[in-house]
């Protein structure tokens, strides 16, 4: 997996600045839309550690995203300084447990095992009173450091989500440069040879699965914080599929691919109703065309 080149980094920085300047020129609605894209970016980026990093395609990822979101509901009103680490930790512990079992399988069976575990988490919130029921609940947001008026919310959440995404990207950028990150890329390239070299492949994969789960928990926490609403849908497998789609569209071979893909998907979802009522049809056609024409995704354009 490649990171952005210096030209790509410039583009990312400029895009970040454009989003950061939205409070000066955009409507509250568009800032909320940008927050949605930022959260999907975080979620897809966390999954990219598995897909582009270690070659692991997981459908359990939305489960960790949803756990992070539900942490806010289950904790009740606390400070964000507590809810955010607890969300990461909860999702991380779940990922450690599920990963330890699911990573005994590989390939297609890994995909199906993660699907099963992800759906178990989904039904835990869908069919039991634990999370407020199947219709979802409005939640009280965690206390932010200072009081935010209703009018300030879109601006504050936009900047908060942008900061969290930037921190997550920087963290993963650094992580992929470590011996650990290089070993993951080796596993993606040839797991069998990595074993023959003596790498503790299973432990490395489990570490990646756990870290990715924690990051997904953070993304879910930010989603619940932004929307003040949670529902079992957050944990459904189609959410995982959406993140996989963002990775595929943005470029599986690039760390920043999922961010481009997430923004493209959000934009597509916003614009397609303008063209026709058959929204999904247009979306499907555009994604299909993009994937067929851009074999290396949006991030691969011009390389």
């Amino acid at each position, binding site marked *: 997996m490649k990171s952005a080149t210096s030209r790509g980094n410039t583009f990312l920085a400029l895009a970040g600045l454009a989003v950061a300047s939205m409070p000066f020129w955009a409507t509250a609605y568009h800032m909320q839309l940008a927050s949605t894209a930022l959260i999907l970016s975080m979620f897809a980026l966390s999954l990219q550690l598995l897909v582009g990093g270690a070659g692991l395609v997981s459908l359990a990822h939305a489960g960790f995203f949803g756990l992070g979101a539900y942490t806010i509901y289950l904790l009740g009103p606390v400070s964000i300084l507590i809810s955010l680490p607890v969300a990461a930790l909860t999702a991380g512990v779940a990922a450690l447990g599920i990963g330890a079992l699911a990573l005994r399988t590989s390939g297609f069976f890994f995909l199906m095992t993660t699907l099963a575990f992800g759906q178990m988490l989904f039904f835990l919130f869908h069919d039991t009173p634990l999370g407020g029921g199947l219709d979802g609940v409005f939640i009280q947001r965690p206390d932010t450091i200072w009081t935010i008026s209703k009018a300030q919310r879109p601006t504050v959440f936009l900047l908060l989500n942008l900061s969290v995404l930037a921190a997550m990207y920087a963290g993963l950028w650094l992580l992929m*440069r*470590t*011996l650990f990150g*290089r070993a993951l890329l080796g596993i993606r390239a*040839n797991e069998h040879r990595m074993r*023959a*070299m003596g*790498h*503790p492949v299973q432990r490395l994969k489990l570490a990646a699965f756990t870290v990715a789960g924690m990051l997904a928990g953070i993304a879910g926490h930010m989603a619940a914080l932004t929307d003040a609403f949670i529902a079992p849908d957050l944990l459904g497998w189609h959410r995982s599929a959406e993140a996989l789609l963002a990775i595929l569209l943005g470029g599986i071979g690039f760390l920043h691919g999922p961010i481009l893909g997430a923004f493209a998907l959000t934009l597509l979802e916003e614009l397609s109703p303008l063209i026709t009522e058959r929204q999904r049809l247009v979306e499907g056609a555009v994604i299909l065309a993009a994937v067929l024409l851009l074999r290396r995704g949006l991030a691969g354009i011009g390389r």
Partner: protein
Amino acid sequence: MMDARGLSRRFGGLLAVSDLSLTLQVGELHAVIGPNGAGKSTLVNLLAGELTPTEGSIWLNGVDIAALDTERRARAGVGRTFQRTNLMPELSVLENVRLAAQVRSGGILRRADRVRPPIEDALAALTRVGLRGTEQNAAGTLSHGQLRQLEIAVALAGQPSVLLLDEPLAGSGAEDAAPLVALMRDLSREHAVLLVEHDMDVVFAVADVVTVMVDGRMLARGTPGEIRASAAVRDAYLGHVVA
């Protein structure tokens, strides 16, 4: 030193390796020859830990390693090459070898480009096999002969005490083979080397000890001269080749 005693491996009704014992020591190149299906590759996989023996024990420097998996055996000092090139084609030549050397480095959260020992070990291994200058190329762009050299460099970078070479010349032409033959002779000075090879000229040129396998069993063992002179070996195996 590696010592295998009474190794057997059964696949259903087939006894692929049967009651085979052998000793590998530093300074000695031990070649295993035999017709196709004699169990040579199974033997390598038993020693490397890809397969667990049905019976028998494998000792590495006085420790029984028969129950250890591939990863643990590799970390204990058993390195191997593969008959079919088994590398990371999209990664650079250097990265292929550096990853093998990285196994011995702790501090897994350090920046890879700042941890020098694996890089230096990798470059040393590449120099040794004659691939210096190609290190920044993607491994997939190398020629077949170079890939065979890279296979050996990857195995060497792990600094194994025991080196299992599974048909290192497979698919190589004569011009590719010559430097590898010289390399193998050189390697046996510092490593206990097991060589599985089809090319008899190569085996007789580099081996100190030759074991002949037929149908999973040891048919004969001796110096290259003894094996060449053995009537039993000639009848069972070499005869087919000559005829």
